[in-house]
């Protein structure tokens, strides 16, 4: 058999990729390019089609339509074993009848590679488990199995490594540790990693580029900072971190800024951060960008007047406030506890201020709660 792992190199391209199960479109006309050598995260809530997308790339599922290519090689119709792609499965799927050594050697032996022992030893050292070579998978802990699953895949040096929620079965502490380790391994071996997760924090920590997926489509793609600072849809604004979204309309223009009317109060937003075709907008500001001012000294910039505090949660490094605005909506504010001033109390009248440059505006016809009801930690 030809050495599949070297026959194709380059960027992974998905073009108009669609997968239907009966009437239901699990993946809907997906087009994206994943650059060679990058750590790419596919982020989205459970059921949005992430696994289906990965399975199509791996060849375990046939696309209903669309194309998949790596570099200039079209792999859409190739069998799984003919693709230079390896997968770290959600439940690891190690071979229960083989030792750890033979599990890792499996792919090498199928391709008739000569120095199996040396290569297996090398990846066992990379994942720091050389002493487990003769064990069976059931004799390993979850974290160890996870690392062996990674080792079994990367030993083949595929053009593309697919990881389907690889840390989902681990407890929080181990998960954080493995995030750092996986990222390190990726830098070390220099392969393209496509990492599927529903955990936005995990995606932000590990990935160079994140594609946020919702109901079979890509909502937005970019670096973690781009997605967090300048979301283009309500779903992304709510799914990555938290956002206050306030219904309003653009009423005026002031240089680089739009002037937006929010229930009678006028605030500004950069035109470059406004993603709406009409004047109806969801005006958005992150909770940690808001500051609480007492009536004595109001800082310059955008101002929300007439709020009063309805809830206070003190959580050490910061205090989280729920502030009810005159129009009835509750706004979230995170204040750093760095000024020695004791937290404010329920019922206090406050004014909220923020830098106009931090605000963004989204299409006003969207559901302002899209993406917020799904709590990734709860799954």
């Amino acid at each position, binding site marked *: 058999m030809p050495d599949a792992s070297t026959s194709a190199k380059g960027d992974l391209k998905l073009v108009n990729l669609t997968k239907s199960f009966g009437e239901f479109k699990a993946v809907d006309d997906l087009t994206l390019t994943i650059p060679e050598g990058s750590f790419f995260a596919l982020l989205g809530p459970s059921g949005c089609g992430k696994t289906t997308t990965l399975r199509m790339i791996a060849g375990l599922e046939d696309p209903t339509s669309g194309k998949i290519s790596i570099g200039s090689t079209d792999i859409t119709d190739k069998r799984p074993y003919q693709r230079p792609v390896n997968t770290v*499965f959600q439940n690891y799927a190690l071979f229960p009848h083989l030792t750890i050594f033979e599990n890792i050697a499996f792919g090498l032996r199928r391709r008739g590679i000569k120095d199996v022992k040396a290569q297996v030893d090398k990846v066992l050292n990379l994942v720091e488990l050389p002493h487990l070579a003769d064990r069976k998978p059931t004799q390993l802990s979850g974290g160890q199995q996870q690392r062996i699953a990674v080792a079994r895949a990367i030993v083949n040096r595929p053009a593309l490594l697919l990881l389907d929620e690889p840390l989902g079965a681990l407890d929080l502490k181990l998960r954080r540790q493995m995030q750092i380790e996986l990222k390190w391994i990726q830098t070390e071996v220099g392969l393209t990693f496509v990492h599927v997760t529903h955990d936005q924090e995990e995606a932000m920590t590990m990935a160079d580029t994140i594609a946020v997926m919702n109901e079979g489509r890509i909502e937005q793609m970019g670096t973690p900072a781009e997605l967090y600072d300048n979301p283009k849809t309500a779903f992304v604004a709510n799914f990555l971190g938290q956002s206050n979204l306030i219904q309003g309309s653009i009423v005026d223009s002031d240089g680089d800024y739009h002037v937006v009317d929010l229930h009678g109060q006028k605030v500004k937003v950069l035109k470059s951060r406004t993603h709406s075709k009409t004047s109806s907008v969801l005006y958005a500001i992150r909770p940690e960008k808001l500051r609480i001012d007492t009536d004595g000294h109001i800082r310059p910039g955008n101002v929300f007047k007439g709020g009063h505090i309805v809830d206070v949660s003190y959580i050490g490094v910061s205090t989280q406030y729920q502030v009810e605005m005159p129009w009835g909506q509750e706004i979230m504010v995170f204040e750093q506890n760095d000024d020695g001033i004791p937290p404010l109390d329920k019922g206090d009248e406050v004014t909220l201020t923020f830098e106009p440059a931090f605000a963004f505006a989204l299409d006003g016809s969207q559901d302002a709660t899209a993406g917020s009801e799904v709590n990734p930690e709860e799954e």
Partner: protein
Amino acid sequence: MAAVVRASGTATSELKKKSLVPYLLLAPGLLWLALFFVAPIITLVGTATKTPGAGIGEFIQTYRWANYWDALTGASAQFGRSFLYAFIATLLALAIAYPLAYGIAFKSGKYKNILLVLVVAPFFCSFILRTIAWKQILGQNGPVYRTLLDLHLISSTTHLTASVPAVIIGLAYNFLPFMTLPLYGSLERIDPRVLEASGDLYANAFTTFRKVTVPLSMPGVVAGTLLTFIPAAGDYVNAEILGNPSTKMIGNVINAQFLNTQDYPTAAALSFILMIAISIMVMIYVRKAGTEELV
């Protein structure tokens, strides 16, 4: 794992001192074994060393252990035949049952339950009747004979019944469910994602079957072959109905000694030898197959 075993080991040793409960729970089972297994075996071993007394069918205990040797040498051909037929029938049953169980486990979709019922459906009909039915099927007027004749694969002087192949086919057929069900059980338990992982790691369908499916189904293969071989080696119905005088198996000899000749000592000795021989073979086989590592 080792740590878990050690931890639970100390826990049970403390329990042992305190409680009789495990023994009380075991008691009914032990009693059952003593009554229906140990006692009959002792009787069997004892009967085998008796010698004929004054009247017909009357035997006196004389502890003549040479009875065993006499019985063995007298029926050595039938012993050999039994194991040979049972062995071939087991291979045949495995060859038929493996694809069948594989199909039911992986390819049957919504028909799975119906197919499983069909596998055990023959049990709703008497063993002997089913074997007689094979006599019809293979007989001169049956479909198999006619077809083979039309295809000029046999001549009209050939007999399909009353032959060695007929006995072996009968054995394989009759114990097929015992082969199929354990095989299905272990194939069904294979995680499909492990098979996908094999494909993902550059194994084509055939290599995946050889390197992953077959090893993971070994517990079923071992169980199925034992459940087929053991009863097949002791069977006498198939040789009686589908065979001829030169296909007699050890079961037929024991049957005849007990019921026709009424030579109870010889019959008992043969039964005991058969039991021991099968036990030894099973032990060697299970050792060789090394199934304890698989589960």
